[in-house]
């Protein structure tokens, strides 16, 4: 049994890594879609979005990402404060 040459192996590894990252992003987008759909689409769906629904969806994604960043920052601040006052490490 022969294997792929080193260059091909490397190429495949890079390819798989990229595909994996993309699949992960897709799964996040699916989760965000359902979450924001539940928040923004309140009426009965018609042939087009109701007023404000489109911008609500975009805002929903932006604010979710803000929330995620905010929480990371907050935890970091709390850790710094704790370390400063000598309570925790």
């Amino acid at each position: 049994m022969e294997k792929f040459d080193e260059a091909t192996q490397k190429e495949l590894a890079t390819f798989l890594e990229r595909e994996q990252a993309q699949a992960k992003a897709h799964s996040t987008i699916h989760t965000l879609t359902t979450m924001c759909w539940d928040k923004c689409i309140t009426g009965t769906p018609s042939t087009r979005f109701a007023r404000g629904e489109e911008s609500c969806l975009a805002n929903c994604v932006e604010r979710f990402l803000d929330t995620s960043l905010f929480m990371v920052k907050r935890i970091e601040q709390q850790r710094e404060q704790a370390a400063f006052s000598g309570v925790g490490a």
Partner: protein
Amino acid sequence: MSDFLKGSLSSSTSPADMAVKKEQIMNSVRQEIALINAQELMNKSTDRCFSKCVTKPGSSLSNSEQTCIGNCMDRYFEAFNIVSRTYTSRARTARLEAQ
């Protein structure tokens, strides 16, 4: 599904065969990911549209329920595209800032 894992290259594999084999692997990975993505979209939209449009299940789907489901599916796909666009552009900006 993962045929490429079972198939091994024979000892007489030429570089051209190897390139073909490589392409096959890449394509089946792409296809499988696309399939999972489509299934996910179908499952989620069915879920959402069923609860939105079929509030009191009768002996069959009424005309108005069918219209609602059709519209709902179209809007759900559109919502997915909006979310995807917003998320991707935000991710791109973050990556550029990190550099």
